[in-house]
């Protein structure tokens, strides 16, 4: 069509849009708002998925938890040694970790106890143990914290230390030895790392037990078989694989963006019904104009083409504006309000940044959901009007 472009017709279409400014501006505004909302939701979901996928890659291949009477219970460390007998397992690490509820801010911190001499089960922890002197950390009974934790503590006047309250009501004063930053903000923002011994004390756990056990396997294809072997040996243990976590997270976000998509579809449908109704009932002025144009030598094709330009300009304009606004809203402003809906599942409040991810297929989907549908909704009634006898229309 571009090769056969009639710029005079295009110019006429633009002038025609401007002549009915208030009506067209209203439609432009509503259409823009709808596309903006959907684009923002999909962009947020995409950015969170990207962040989660990066985070999930750092998670253990298999995590073993113990359940007694349907409730999670600590695992005897002796089992870690025993698991090494299973062929295919390359390493086993008992973990001591948990959530610490910080009442003044209403948030949970993730507290992880680590041993400087142990192999770390995640790349983030490995990186941290290389950056910070963990032996010094153990000797001084201090901790290193994520940026989010540091900020929340500082807001509550804990700049150099924090007083943990142990289950038996004792105060445990722990100095802050350092602050770390990680690209994986979801994982590290709410994180507190301290020596294992200190973690046992804060959680009131026996030192012969661990919160759970992480298992590394030599061949990822054998994960399912190894899980079977472990659960056969220890029926009270439940194995969670990296894939299980990925699927459950993705389900949450797919469900949420799917929910928004359904909402959008309903509102978009209502919108197009209104548009169809509005344009099919062309005003007498518009009908008369079509009649005059036919009388002075325009064909129905010319009229439909002109109406196509009008609706294309309007819908493409709305689409481009909405996508630009959505990009700015999600990535520059970090999606205030909407992001909370997505992050609402979490007990923590990490102040992480939504990482930029431009998903072309999503933009194409949005384009197809808006521009062609709008054009079709407006073109059909215009075509119907243009195929009437000009004589009849002008009378």
């Amino acid at each position, binding site marked *: 069509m571009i090769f056969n472009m009639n710029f*005079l017709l295009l110019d006429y279409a633009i*002038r025609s849009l401007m002549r009915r400014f208030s009506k067209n501006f209203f439609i432009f505004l509503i259409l823009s708002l709808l596309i903006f909302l959907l684009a923002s939701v999909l962009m947020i979901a995409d950015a969170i998925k990207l962040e989660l996928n990066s985070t999930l890659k750092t998670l253990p291949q298999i995590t073993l938890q113990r359940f007694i009477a349907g409730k999670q219970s600590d695992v005897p460390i002796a089992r870690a040694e025993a698991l090494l007998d299973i062929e295919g397992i390359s390493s086993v690490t008992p973990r001591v970790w948990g959530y610490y509820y910080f009442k003044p801010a209403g948030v949970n911190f993730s507290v992880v106890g680590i041993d400087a001499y142990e192999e770390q089960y995640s790349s983030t922890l490995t990186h941290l143990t290389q950056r910070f002197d963990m032996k010094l950390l153990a000797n001084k009974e201090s901790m290193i914290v994520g940026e989010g934790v540091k900020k929340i503590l500082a807001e509550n006047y804990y700049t150099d230390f924090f007083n943990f309250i142990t289950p038996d009501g004792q105060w445990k004063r722990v100095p802050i030895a350092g602050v770390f930053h990680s690209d994986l903000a979801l994982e590290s923002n709410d994180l507190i790392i301290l020596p294992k011994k200190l973690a046992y004390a804060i959680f009131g756990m026996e030192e012969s037990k661990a919160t759970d056990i992480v298992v590394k396997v030599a061949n990822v294809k054998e994960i399912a078989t190894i899980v079977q072997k472990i659960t056969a040996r220890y029926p009270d243990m439940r194995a969670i694989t990296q894939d299980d976590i990925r699927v459950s997270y993705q389900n949450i976000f797919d469900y949420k963006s799917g929910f928004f998509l359904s909402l959008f579809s309903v509102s978009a449908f209502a919108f197009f019904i209104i548009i169809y109704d509005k344009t099919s009932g062309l005003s007498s002025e518009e009908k008369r104009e079509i*009649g005059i144009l036919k009388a002075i030598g325009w*064909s*129905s094709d010319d009229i439909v083409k002109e109406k196509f330009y009008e609706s294309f300009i309007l819908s493409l304009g709305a689409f481009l504006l909405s996508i630009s606004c959505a990009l700015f809203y999600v990535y520059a402003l970090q999606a205030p309000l909407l992001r909370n809906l997505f992050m609402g599942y979490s007990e923590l409040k990490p102040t992480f940044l939504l990482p930029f991810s431009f998903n072309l297929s999503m933009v194409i989907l949005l384009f197809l959901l808006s521009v062609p549908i709008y054009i079709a909704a407006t073109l059909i009634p215009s075509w119907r009007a243009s195929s009437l006898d000009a*004589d009849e229309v*002008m009378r």
Partner: protein
Amino acid sequence: MIQLHDVCKSFMQGDESVFALRQISLHVKRGECVVLKGNSGSGKSTLLSLIAGLAQPNSGEVSVDGREISKLPEPFSAKLRRQKIGFIFQKFHLIPHLTALENVITPLIPENLSLSLLDEKAKTSMEQCGIAHKAQMRVNRLSGGEQQRVAIARALVNNPLLILADEPTANLDENLSRELIAQFERLKHQGITQLIATHDPLFFELGFVDRIIEIKNGELV
């Protein structure tokens, strides 16, 4: 130039079919100026619409410049109308909110001409009608006479071979009507074929009019 053979046209009024034109046969030669007189509702406007290809006859043939416009596919009849016919309407039928110049160039838009050619054609046509000085004014701000001149300039912008005028003086006072008649005389001298449908007596005593045909109840008298 115009050839009608046994043309019939009827409209539906409720369940009843009402004849607007019956068995009309007419021949208008190139360069001829013909006045079609008749009272309101006699079928003058319907006849002009059929000649312009704006409506289709129920039976019979309508040809313009050797082409049977009544049987041409819509895009071709539109092209014929655009390139060979200028239509002057009783109620002017200008597009409000557009300027006089924009109204005049509107028939040329589908032709996709260059801007310079477009400008030249519009200027010539508007000068010919004495309305060039109002080119940038919106037509809804012009007087009736000025609007009629814009409508004529629009009809002439494509250098048509045929002018069809439907009650062109119906909305004009006598002075403006005489000015318009002078314009028709100039067109006659330029060799443009004219078919003017009117019941204005001013047209019945004009020297440049070749023929006056009367239409009554859809039939030529």
